[in-house]
């Protein structure tokens, strides 16, 4: 049997273009970040000392950038702050998204596509504009405070914008579709006869949900939580627009180190620390998850 593009030359060419692209524009840049994280800050362009001094033939690596990270509480607090906000947002997405995904998966077959489309639709409009929309709603003289005051629930406007609450609202809003879509995919595939069997054996609907549906939907829960949690930890735009000066997140710190302080080595060290603490564990987890699925467990 001959398979497509069996000739070695053809295979080589097809593989070469994306491989070369990713090596040059994805892998090499990270090696450069690693390199610059080990160099010393300096004023000028580019604002760091060269790592290797060719004239003296010596390697002048320094851990100054990493010492800054460890020496100042700011970075640890920002990292923990990001994890906390991302965790709360993920939980919020799960609590809102699970019932929604469940309702869509159990809706009549003819309606499911349309209902799902309605979830994905906001994704196609601008993310930035959707986050911006919340400024008009959440600010002190915004629509939410006006509505609450008109209803007589509060007398003074609530300070929501420029707090962590606003950031969580923005994140839940932006990432909700990423939670609903994988949840729907697992709930829709579920074999409903298992629920019938549970009912025949005298299991009440709620108990059946806890004992059958929820465990079976765990792959969707995990996938959805990862899709929300990971970008939420590195998020910059939402905390910048909706959060206040005391909303400390790692994305904002990296941004400030790079653009405001022009301290490239420290910004690079923050990026490396983020990669090691967040992305690497997740990629290892995904690798084993994929292996497990290949084995058909």
């Amino acid at each position: 049997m001959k398979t497509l593009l069996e000739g070695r030359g053809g295979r080589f060419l097809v593989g070469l273009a994306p491989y070369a692209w990713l090596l040059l524009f994805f892998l090499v840049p990270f090696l450069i970040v690693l390199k610059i994280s080990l160099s010393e800050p300096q004023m000028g362009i580019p604002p760091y000392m060269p790592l290797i001094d060719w004239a003296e033939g010596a390697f002048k690596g320094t851990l100054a950038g990493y010492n800054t990270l460890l020496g100042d509480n700011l970075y640890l607090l920002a990292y923990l702050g990001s994890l906390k906000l991302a965790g709360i947002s993920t939980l919020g997405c799960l609590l809102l998204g699970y019932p929604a995904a469940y309702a869509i998966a159990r809706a009549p077959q003819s309606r499911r596509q349309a209902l799902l489309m309605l979830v994905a639709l906001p994704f196609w409009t601008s993310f930035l504009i959707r986050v911006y929309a919340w400024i008009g709603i959440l600010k002190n003289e915004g629509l939410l405070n006006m509505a609450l005051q008109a209803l007589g629930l509060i007398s003074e406007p609530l300070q929501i914008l420029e707090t962590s609450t606003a950031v969580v609202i923005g994140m839940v809003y932006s990432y909700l579709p990423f939670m609903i879509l994988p949840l729907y995919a697992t709930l829709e595939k579920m074999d409903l006869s298992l629920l019938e069997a549970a009912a025949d054996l005298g299991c009440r609907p709620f108990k059946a949900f806890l004992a059958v549906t929820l465990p079976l939907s765990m792959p969707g829960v995990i996938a959805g939580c990862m899709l929300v949690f990971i970008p939420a930890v590195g998020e910059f735009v939402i905390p910048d627009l909706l959060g206040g000066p005391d909303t400390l997140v790692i994305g904002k710190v990296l941004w400030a180190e790079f653009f405001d302080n022009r301290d490239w080595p420290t910004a690079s060290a923050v990026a490396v620390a983020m990669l090691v603490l967040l992305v690497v564990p997740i990629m290892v987890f995904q690798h084993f998850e994929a292996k497990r699925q290949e084995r058909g467990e």
Partner: protein
Amino acid sequence: MKNRGFALYTALALVYAFLYLPIALLVIYSFNASKLVTVWGGFSTKWYGELLHDAQVLDAAWLSLKIAFLNACLATALGTMAAVVLVRFRRFSGRALFTGMVSAPLVMPEIITGLALLLLFVGMENLLGWPDGRSMTTIVIAHVTFSLSFVTVVVRSRLAQMDLSLEEAAMDLGARPLTVFFSITLPIIAPALAAGWLLAFTLSVDDVVISAFVSGPGATPLPIVIFSKVRLGVSPEINALATIVVALVGVAIAVAGRVMMTREKQGG
């Protein structure tokens, strides 16, 4: 059972309200005559007029469309090749590295990718004299790098589901691999390519963080302009711009939906 269904649909309705209310409010307030965004001062289209005379916004929008178009074409080509490699080439040296590099941009925080790419461009400029400053080229390269992974995911799943016997039949009848690819494989995976192209286009038009790193004074795409305006506060002009975006997306989706409906009716 009936009660449970009712509760579920209520939850679903609330989620839809949550998703759509902010967008609806933007659209409504874009027709507000008052400059104070939350005070209704009567119906007006003046913000649309101002928007049409804002050269900065118009230039940025045109640049963004050009970047998104180039990005979508390049990312679809490279992403499709990557998908073919992953699905059809079982073993080759460096497969693990390749698989890792294709999926890594999906989980990489944008802020790290942006920083890394800028440092690469600065390094290359010092070493080779290219790219000369931040321009459309650097933005397109950066966007292709992250969006090709998304194209790969979409095309890969379609390619994996494809019935291989059609390709084998064509081969048995003497067609060359390249002919088979263009006359059999490509038409079958075409919907995935279209979806991937659209996804890459949208991701590019929408990107703020990576563009902020790799764009320069001479090349400022629309999201960067919006972002700098929005950071200064709410502006009715941005509401008008948002409404235009929503309307365009709505029309595009309506057209796509119609095309798909007709194709389904024809049994295609």
